[in-house]
Structures are given as structure tokens and as C-alpha cells.
């Protein structure tokens, strides 16, 4: 029972974190808010998740977890890779600018 309350508290905190933390993308915020709500509801009762699953046209809660999990994993990979490329590109531009400036100073 303590563990259940602990997880419920974590999901509530994640929900507020999702609302308050500055995100670069609205989708990231939505993902965290909806995901924490989903976690909270699934801890209260599996029946609720079953109802959600049936409502959105998925057979049962287990499949809903599976799909949700897979989408989360792939989205995380894609977003992380894109972010990595973006940061890499900024570092490259910065390093090249420093190199050119240094060469002008040392002329």
C-alpha cells in the first residue's frame, strides 16, 4: 500500500512538473502531463485503464500499455537524436567561429 501511495505521489509531482517546467515543445509538455495522468489512473484501478482502452478502440489495458510504451520509446529516440544533432551543429558553428577569431587575433 505504501508503494502505491509513493507512486501516486510521484505521478502527481510529475503532473505538476509537466505543467510548470519550461519546455521547448508543447508536445513534450503534453506528453508528460498526459503520461502522468495515465499513470495515476492506472494505479487507482486497472478497470479505469480498461475503460480508456475500450473508449479509444484498443482491446484491453495491456495492449494500451504496450502501444503507449512503444510510442514513448520511439518518440524519445527520435527527439533525442534530433536534439543531439541540433546541439552538435551549434557546437560546430561555435568552435569554427572561435578558430577563425583566434586566427585573426594571432595574425
Amino acid at each position, binding site marked *: 500500500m505504501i508503494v502505491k501511495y509513493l507512486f501516486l505521489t510521484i505521478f502527481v509531482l510529475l503532473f505538476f512538473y509537466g505543467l510548470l517546467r519550461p519546455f521547448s515543445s508543447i508536445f513534450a509538455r503534453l506528453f508528460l502531463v498526459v503520461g502522468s495522468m495515465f499513470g495515476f489512473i492506472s494505479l487507482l484501478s486497472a478497470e479505469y485503464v480498461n475503460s480508456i482502452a475500450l473508449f479509444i478502440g484498443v482491446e484491453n489495458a495491456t495492449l494500451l500499455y504496450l502501444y503507449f510504451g512503444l510510442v514513448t520509446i520511439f518518440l524519445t529516440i527520435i527527439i533525442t537524436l534530433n536534439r543531439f544533432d541540433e546541439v552538435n551543429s551549434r557546437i560546430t558553428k561555435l*568552435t569554427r567561429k572561435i578558430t577563425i577569431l583566434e586566427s585573426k587575433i594571432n595574425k
Partner: protein
Amino acid sequence: MKFKDIYVIVPAFNEQNVIKDIINNLLKNFSNVIVINDGSNDKTLEIINDLDIKILSHEINLGVGAAVQTGFDYVSDIPDAKAVITFDADGQHLVDDAVAMAKEILICDEGIIFGTRFPKHSKNIPKVKRIVLKLIAKITDLVTGVTLSDAHNGLKAYKVSTIKELELQFSSYSYESELITQVAKKKIDYKEMSTDIKYTSYSIKKGQKLLNGLLIIEDLLKLWK
């Protein structure tokens, strides 16, 4: 006679074993050699510091594409520069080929001269690599419309007016694909010149891995939007 208004850009990353000889050979024919030390963590920088060349040094290793673009940016600001030659630091290229390209870029109408190992010197290329290179050239042609027999040869000559038009974003070897894409999109005139290649165990170890061919194709498709 030494070329005074042509700048040779040599991107170098951990080339302590060969860099000195390569630069000294280039200096016999070119007055202006620029080595872009791309964050080497061996003695490359120490060695080139003793040579009569311009050194640009990246604090961290960014990749050959970024090093070449740094060289372009530097040369673009030099008023009397007429052309640029890119020359790999691993000893694959021959200085004689660079000299022939330098002569040609000064008199030809094209903005870029691509070095090609085909068909004259293709026997020097390992068989599997030869097939991969031909495949990449074919796909490059299909995707960009730029017909080259060798799309990934580091030895190239550019007019300075051309490098001012280029802006390479890709840091790694895939900058070659980006370059070809920009040549197509900006309608830059180009031609090929036969160049030899000297494969040593050292240059093979330092060069592109064959599996990179797949990444090159992916980059080409990504770039051609």
C-alpha cells in the same frame, strides 16, 4: 614556380605519422598551405607548429566537413586568393595531381574541379571499395543530377568565388554529399580531373569505412528535399 594565389587546405586529425612529409611536399609547389588541426590529441599540432604554414586549430574534433568549411571561411577573407585546393592529410593524394588541378582551376570556366580515380586509376582501389564508390556516384547522379564518376574524393579545386557561395553544415565525411547537393541547387559549373590515389595500410585505416556508404546514401536523400 610556386603558386602564390592558390591556398591548399589540409584538414588533419591525428596525423602525426605522415603530416610533416605531406606538408613539406606541398610547400615545394604552393606558398600558402593551411592546415586545419581538427582537435588532434596526438602530436600533430606540435609537429606542424614548426612548419612555415598557417594553422587553424579546432579545440575539439568536429569532423572533416567542419574543418574544410573553416578553411573556406578563412580563405574567403583573403583579398588576393584566387582558388582553393582541398588535400587529405593521410597521404592518399599526389602533389602532382594538386599542381595539375591548380593550373586548371586558374584557367577553366568551372567553379569546382572534382578529382576522380575513375577510370584511369581505378585499379589502385580495392575491389569492394570500387563497387561502393561507383554505386554512390550512381545514386548521387540519380538524386542530384550531378554526374560524377567519383563523388567522394578529397582532392578538389575551387574558385574563391565558388567557396563564397557554399555553406557546409555537415561536419563529417557526409559534407561531400552536401557539397554536391549545393553544386546542383546553386547551379555551380563543375568538371572532373583524373587523379591518382596511393593506398597504404595507414591511409586505409584512416579513411572512410565501407559501411559509411550507407550513411552517405541516407544523407543524400535527407539533403535532397
